[in-house]
């Protein structure tokens, strides 16, 4: 592990199918955009190192599929996430009205009670907007979320959204721990009985 990395944060992106979750992520991580971005099957994953306030932070970002049939698979990926991004399409009223259900799911499955939540209204480059900025703001306010409008296509707001989210997470006490993965792994296995069933020491020590 890069010693200069302050911490690794787990971030989750959810929202209706087709609102542009994968597109936002790819714009952020690879600065690319594909008009024919394939619909996500199950869940996808990206890593990105960013620098916030002089700290290197590694982001492990999980991009979930919005399609109804995949949704039973995704709740498990809420576990231990420090940040969650809820996306809707400003040109789709329906994607906005479904936010309540997505928010409920988030509340139910997130294990960090103080997980930082962000709402993104995507596709502002398109005309025929169906959801006003005010409506988005209102929803975010009601649920204590960060809010931003963005376009994966034109880059507007994308970088800022992720930076803002990470900054907020870093400022939330008790939500994250500095990375000491290697040492901790050792001391734990020294102290405890070897072979506790069904516990892995790699990934989950990120908790």
């Amino acid at each position: 592990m890069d010693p200069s990395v302050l911490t690794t944060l787990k971030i989750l992106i959810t929202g209706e199918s087709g609102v542009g979750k994968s597109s936002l992520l790819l714009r952020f991580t690879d600065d690319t955009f594909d008009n024919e971005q394939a619909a996500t099957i199950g869940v996808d994953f990206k890593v990105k190192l960013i620098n916030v306030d002089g700290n290197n932070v590694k982001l492990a970002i999980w991009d979930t599929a919005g399609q109804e049939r995949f949704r039973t698979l995704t709740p498990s990926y809420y576990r231990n996430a420090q940040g969650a991004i809820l996306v809707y399409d400003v040109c789709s009223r329906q994607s906005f009205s479904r936010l309540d259900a997505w928010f409920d799911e988030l509340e139910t499955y997130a294990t960090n009670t103080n997980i930082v939540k962000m709402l993104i209204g995507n596709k502002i480059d398109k005309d025929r907007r169906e959801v006003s900025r005010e409506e988005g703001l209102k929803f975010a306010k009601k649920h204590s979320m960060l809010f931003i409008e963005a376009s994966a296509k034109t880059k507007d707001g994308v970088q800022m959204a992720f930076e803002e989210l990470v900054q907020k997470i870093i400022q939330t006490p008790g939500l994250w721990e500095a990375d000491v993965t290697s040492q901790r792994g050792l001391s734990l296995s020294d102290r405890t009985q070897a072979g506790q069933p069904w516990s892995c020491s790699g990934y989950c020590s990120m908790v």
Partner: protein
Amino acid sequence: MADQEDEEVFEIVDFTSASEWEVFISRLEEILLSWQLSLKDKEEVVTSFVDLNGDWKSSSEDISFAGHPFILTHHWVEQSTVTNEVNKVELVTDKKGCQVFASLMDNRHDFPFNCLPLAKYYGLSDFVVITPAGNEMLTSEDRINLLLSSITIAVGNIQSRAPVFVQIHSKSQQLYQGTFECKNLRTDFQMVHLKRIPPTCKCLSGLIELFKDKIGSTPLEPVDLSICWTYSLSDVRNGGWEKWPQPPPDFESMGGVVGNAALGQLGFGAIRDPIKEIRVSAVWTGLNEDVVVDSEVYSDLDPVQAPLWIARLVLNEQVPSLLIKSLCSFLDLCRSSESIEQLLGKNYTVLQSPDSPEYERALGALTKERKGYGLLSSNRLPFGSKKAQTGGPIPEAMMVNLLNYLFPDAEGDLESQTHPYPEQFQTDCSASIDSTWKEFFSAFKTSPVDSLVWRLATAAVYTMTHLNGIEGVAHLWHEIVLELRFRWEHGYTIPGLETGGVPDLNYCRLYQKLQMLNCCINHKKAGNSAPPVEATDEDEFYDAEETLESMEATPQKERHSVWNQPQGRKERTKMKLLRSGETLYEPVTQALLPMTEDMVEEQSEMMEQLGDNAEGSELRARILSASLLSDMEAFKAANPGAEMEDFVRWHSPRDWIEEEVMTSDGCKMEGRLSGRMQAPGNLWQEMWRAAKPIVAWRQKRLFDDTKEAEKILHTFSALRPAQIATLLLPTVMHASIHRLLEELRPNIQLPDAVSNCRAAIAKIVQIARHSPLDLQQYEDLLPVLQKIEVRLSQFNSLRRRIIDYGDWEGIDEFVTRLLIDGNVSLTGGSHSPAGKALLKAMGSLNKKDTSSGLPSPVKKEFVLRAMAHRPGNGSTCSCQKLFCSVDEDSVRLAGAWTQDTLFY
């Protein structure tokens, strides 16, 4: 000042010839000065009342006299602890006054209960004691006198504001002589301790005589009196407490046939009585010799009529308690290293594979014995495998009890179950706990209250503590695994788990695994039964809503060729297939993949390892596409002739874009696949092409119930007792704090217990989330839990005793204050509500019939005071005080005699 110091430097003082006592005096003066006890340059502020039960401080120095080492200690009450506001206002600066004299004469200082003996005898709040160091003892009269006169000189030289005492004779006797001087008045402190009680000391009249004798002159006013008679309510004295109920659970006598009630509950409470004694003192102050008569033949003093009673609590220190004891042994279990086979022998070998002959034998026996399972057996049949073995560590009857507790459904229907599971599990806390605790309880990653895992936890603690320890736990687990296997093999659902369909990741892993096992059992049962009733075309025909359409429809059956009959239709939708115009049916699909936390972790770890580049993404999609393919195949089976467009409209409606297009006949809605679904080479199209019409129940299973169940059962049977205990530990801790809170009744204000509970809950919530768990963190919790348990058992024990003799509104407050403050003043004495109860309690102890209805006091204390001219009539009037304490076999007299050093 500076000049003076300069002079002193050049003034040669020769100490070479100083005698030993001169050295001692100068050293003593030096120390007293360093403690700032000199009144030379300071006016003393006289505080009229100091709470002697307050915060005592001390500091010490070494000093030697003629080669003998002594320790000089300054004791004082921290002044900030002058608790009573009124008394703070009373602070007076009295230039003529002197704190020591004020203290001696203030009857509010009488009978403190929580201070040094010297403070108690004289009412002093600031004094110095010289004690021989080590085992030395001052016994010779000469030496004592030499020491005292040396002290007198030093104290006089520096005008010490604190009296200085010397401890004499053996230390345990608490005998002191002391001296003090202020404004030409010297007080001599003298003490005697007699093993034989002279008749004069037994009553007040004799003491008054003695007091006056010692003063030598007639006091100015009648002698002022304070009296305190103390009674004891204890189990030691008088054989008294036996009437006071204190039944700690006697597990020894219960042996192997512990009542079932104890099974469901963790033990609680002190093993020995945490309350040693309650002392009740009847107190009179401000009496004088003219108004009260107390002689050997007659007494005006009736403790029942005393204006003030003080109740005091004496606790037994370090009383072991049940919960902590069992938690300790449970933690030992977590650290043990033996396997079940090592503990129980070959007969309990892990059933390795379903093919092994051993497995066959065990199972054969099982199935034979348990045929009537769940139907008629009202008492659980013992396992065949166990019959073959010569008795395990847990006796058979007890084992049946335990198994019935864990798997009550085997006893028969609900009415015949001894311990049915609750209809619904409470996630926060049960009704037996005050609801204010609810909010703290939601975050526990353990198991629901009274669920199977909860019962496993309490049963394991119980077995560890009361039944054969680690061997018992091994035996119990062995039977549990057999039971679970039996249920898996025969399709009986495991009871005591939430029926959510998939494992709930908010609970501990053991709980998830058992839920998973249930998923397997249910999946297998569903898979073996007939395919679900399908939605058929006939249904459509009779559907009222769409009668018109249906009527139009052509006869159904002929539409599909024999080899292309629709199959696995679950529900019809409002959509029509694009090409044929037939109704689009939602297909029956495969059940979802249930996953436990470790599987999720494993999966996401694997996903992560695929990397975050495009290839990784594609691989991930392919791995996760199994369920998509299954959906496509099921869809094709239910909708013969369907196109990908049809599938997308059902599966991903947002990828079906409908737009108004202008045609020659006007406006028309036209649909098409979204760009991303049309894109060439896209995985969706590729899969659609590959998908064959296969109905869900003929598809390759997404969820392999047999593999999962065998995996779990195999892990279960290979667990060492330590591993089992570790899996149960978070729930054991949860159950422990739950048990403690059951004892913390809502109206009880025990601030320390409440705050300790909060701290413990927060800690358990935190550490239960860590995986793998850290035993040390659990160990660290025990002292906090112990404090809570001890405090609560003290409260319970005390309250139970008091309530036997009286119940009133303020009883909880009284008990709480007695427990926290150690003493409670009862104004009105025996007429106060608490006084009434205590009086009744003492009456019940009174075997010898005395007139007051009370037993004889264990201690009588008297304080006598007067102002008198000593040594002669020309002397300044000064304070004289005698403290006397008489108990059963000794008497202590402590006098403070003041005299004028100038005028006679």
